[in-house]
């Protein structure tokens, strides 16, 4: 057991850092890498940085060499990410494509698709989005209702997707659609690549609790997709979708809004309770310790997965654990910070403070939903990891169109 770099790892880290030092400047403490862009200028900066990395061989380093990567190990990938995070870089708008959709294309795409799309994806020339969730199909993705109907050599898509990150600046999307409503739920789904600039695609931002808009609704009205854009076969799209979701869980994690426990410790040293620093209150210390144990446990669990991955073992349940622990943890940390601030915790004003914890508190509920709700994560852990029986399913052996949907579905 050793938490330090091996000699090879240290050398690789030095190599990464040397290139970064030559091409970027160090990040100011406390600032974070964004995941979305509000304007075209930011998109362009992000694309320029991605192209620069690609030219030097530092883009998608864990991708196989045949697709333009350097076939780096997971641990090397992680070292690169750690190092890059130490430098000031534009938002990473490519994660969904490079982390989830690219690997899906490698596994299920045709050679023509791989040739056409992967290099531009790697270089950041084309940004991708994932068109999965619908208003009535979130946790229960297979309940999706967006229709694709064949019309000559093309397919025509009608319906609505939601929670689509980056749709407004994406060139391409990967969309799951229903092509056979008379089949059982999981059997009538087909997976396509869709041109986000095609006629009939309309993107509308969704405003969230915290006032921001990281997500979109995307409406499809008679959008034509050529048959060559199908990923895998008709009505067999669920397999490809699962590949994407597996890669999603690997891509999520880390990051997140708000500070860490170290920031809370500093806050508790500054803010008074009854005239003394809050940290002198034993109850405050209990709460900080509980938060630390979970934060640190998740970080360490991530390192354990990495060790397993680096040996070619299947990753353990650590990714689901990280999501299940991390999302409520961020909400709890933010709530605790607001409480430490006292009535001033209610002030969410640029003119008064950095709004760090206020924005974290308002943004936190999204983290407990997006990418799999807390409940879905517990189902996954209890069923796939612990081997407990699955939920009784009433929707498994009936035609999709006969599944009960209630009033609001």
């Amino acid at each position: 057991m050793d938490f330090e770099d091996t000699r090879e790892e240290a050398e690789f880290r030095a190599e990464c850092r040397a290139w970064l030092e030559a091409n970027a400047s160090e990040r100011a403490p406390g600032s974070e890498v964004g995941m979305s862009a509000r304007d075209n200028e930011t998109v362009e900066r992000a694309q320029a940085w991605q192209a620069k990395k690609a030219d030097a061989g530092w883009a998608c380093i864990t991708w196989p060499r045949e697709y333009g990567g350097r076939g780096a190990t997971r641990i090397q990938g992680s070292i690169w990410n750690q190092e890059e995070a130490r430098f000031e870089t534009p938002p990473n708008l490519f994660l969904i494509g490079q982390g989830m959709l690219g690997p899906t294309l490698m596994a299920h795409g045709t050679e023509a698709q791989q040739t056409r799309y992967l290099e531009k994806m790697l270089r950041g020339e084309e940004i991708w989005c994932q068109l999965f969730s619908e208003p009535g199909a979130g946790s229960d993705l297979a309940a999706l209702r967006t229709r694709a109907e064949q019309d000559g050599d093309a397919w025509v898509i009608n319906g609505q997707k939601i929670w689509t990150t980056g749709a407004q600046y994406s060139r391409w999307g990967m969309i799951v659609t229903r092509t056979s409503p008379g089949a059982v739920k999981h059997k009538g789904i087909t997976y396509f690549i869709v041109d986000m600039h095609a006629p009939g695609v309309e993107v509308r931002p969704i405003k969230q609790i915290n006032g921001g808009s990281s997500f979109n609704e995307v409406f499809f009205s008679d959008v034509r997709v050529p048959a060559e854009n199908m990923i895998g076969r008709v009505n067999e799209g669920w397999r490809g979708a699962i590949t994407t979701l597996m890669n999603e869980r690997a891509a999520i994690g880390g990051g997140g809004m708000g500070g860490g426990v170290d920031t809370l410790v500093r806050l508790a040293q500054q803010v008074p309770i009854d005239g003394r620093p809050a940290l002198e209150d034993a109850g405050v210390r209990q709460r900080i310790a509980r938060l630390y144990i979970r934060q640190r446990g998740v970080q360490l669990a991530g390192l354990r997965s990495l060790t397993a991955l680096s040996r070619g073992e299947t990753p353990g349940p650590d990714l689901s654990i990280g999501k299940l622990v991390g999302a409520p943890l961020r909400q709890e940390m933010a709530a605790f910070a607001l409480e430490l601030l006292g009535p001033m915790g209610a002030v969410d004003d640029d003119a008064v403070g950095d709004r760090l914890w206020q924005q974290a508190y308002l943004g936190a509920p999204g983290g407990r939903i997006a990418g799999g709700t807390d409940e879905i994560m517990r189902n996954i852990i209890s069923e796939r990891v612990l081997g407990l029986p699955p939920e009784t399913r009433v929707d498994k052996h009936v035609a999709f169109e006969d599944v009960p949907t209630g009033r609001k579905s």
Partner: protein
Amino acid sequence: MNFDFDDDQKALQRAVREYLERESPLSECRRVLEGEARYSETVWRGAAEMGWLGTAIPERYGGAGLGALELALVAEEVGRALAPIPFASSIYLVSEALLQLGSEAQKERYLPQLAAGTCIGAFALQEGPGHGNGQALATVLKDGAITGDKQPVLDGDVAGLYVVACRVGDQPRLALVGAGEGVKATPVACIDGSRALARLQLSGAQAELLGDGGDAAAIEHLLDRAATLMAFEQLGGADQAFAITREYVLDRYVFGRPVGSFQAIKHRLADLFVDISLARSNSYYAAWALAGSADELPVAAAAARAAASDAFDLAASEMVHMHGGIGFTWEADAQLFYKRAKLLALTLGSPTHWRDRLTLRLARESAA
């Protein structure tokens, strides 16, 4: 032994509820949240006309002359409706402060305006981050002039009358300050944009003591009273968040079944219902103590307030979560509860603060 409100009290509550359902639907709260007003003047005016701003103000000062139990029920309805009005500030805090500590002249001058809603009161206690300590207040009253920087002050920029916690010498006191020279109230953005939050800067403003100014114990008693009423406001909010969530999980289907048929959801809603019920029992007892059993109030108020803060906070956060993706959108109403719950929990001291006081008071009783 009779652990319930009487028929007249329930009729009053029904009337308030019906008024607010009609005049203060959630869209009214949202209107303020969207920045179209600092509070709902229509609802405020209506409340004044119906006479429930002055519920607990004696008739000779223009009020309805009812008691704390009636006021608690009105507070519950204000909470249920998320009414975007300065009710807590003007009524539980400023009117109550005048009633408890004010001189006869002060009562005669201000209470009728407060009951009529023509003057809004705000309570200025806090001075920046952390939890207050009366002894160390930086705001000073000397020779009729008050100077200090109070923030945040709920409803501070819509108020015309302030009760300000300050020091005279090294003693904590309460002062009355009206709008005027040396009084500057600046709006600050609030985590719950449907309520007005402000910074109140006092620079040599004209001020008088509230009655004889009170002392630390009198201020604590005032906060206990306000905490009890605030607990009812929170209880109303919790109840409503729960009711909407229950409806939603019955209507929304996932995997071919109502969301509310999953045991994980059922059991969490059962636990939430239990938490709200326990908060309700504790709050009823505190209301009874408020109405007449002063000895019981310190423990009962602290228990009620801590329990109700947690119950509303949990109800609102479960509401957002159980609404799924839609729950964290601006468009959905869940956000209104999530934000209000947090604002109310942070105002007048966090649940942690009140739990601390609760145990200290239990220990004092146990020693006595």
